[in-house]
């Protein structure tokens, strides 16, 4: 399972997005990160095969996240569920 990388000028944090291709708030999260020039990687979970979906389940639940989208994992430890601009700004310093 390979996450797609979107490059920006800000690389201070490892930002991983688990999203749905149909989800409005997932699209807005990607847009927000791009607008703030944050480098991030993402994967659209609804487009994955069952085995990869199961891996996503493992990754998100192991980090203490719920199975809601978007799920944003910063530096492999901080989990943000949903498009929370304030939380993203605080954690990413943008």
């Amino acid at each position, binding site marked *: 399972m390979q996450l797609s990388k979107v490059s920006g000028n800000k690389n201070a944090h490892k930002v991983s997005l688990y999203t*749905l*291709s*149909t*989800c*409005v*708030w997932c*699209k807005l999260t990607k847009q927000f990160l791009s607008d703030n020039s944050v480098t991030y990687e993402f994967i659209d*979970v*609804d487009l994955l095969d*069952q*085995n990869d*979906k*199961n*891996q*996503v*389940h*493992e990754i998100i639940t192991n980090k203490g996240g*719920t*199975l*809601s*989208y978007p799920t944003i994992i910063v530096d492999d430890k901080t989990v943000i569920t*949903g498009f*929370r601009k304030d939380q993203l700004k605080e954690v990413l310093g943008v």
Partner: protein
Amino acid sequence: MTPAIELIRKRVEADAKSYGYYLTPQADLLQMFFEGLETNETRYGYPVCPCRLGTGNLDLDRDIICPCDYRDPDVAQYGACYCRLYVNKAIYESQNLPEVPERRPAEKMARAYDTSIHKQQMPIATNTPSKPQTQTAAQEQNTEVKKKLWYCKQCGYVIYREDPPYICPICKAKREMFAEIDAKIEFNG
């Protein structure tokens, strides 16, 4: 707007009107919601909520077909549904969309992921290729939904679902007004 999206728009607008709801006030977001619904309708054959992960198994997805089972209690409590596609008048006029937590039970969300398969496959993946036969058996076990007959004690509406609705679609009675019908069929002779 394509004809398919136009149909969805009409359906969603009519549904909002019949329940006295409004649609999200931002036109660009609304367009994205319609596109997401159209994608899911094409993909699954029914419009799964664009903000949730569907499975393609109707029994597992039934509660998240838009308008989902959770919309009415969410609009009543937060002024908007989980997606914030449907909102009440106050939210529509203020244009401030609230945060709406996921009401869908975690065990229902987990059904989109076959964790029983995953646990079986984890050790296998490093040694030998996975066995499709094991997958099928485990998947069948995981996707079994036990449906029951429920009736509304207020108006008599009957529904055959896993859980009773949060609000009766006919008389708007609350979930507490639903009772299970214990049907027994006896064959004699």
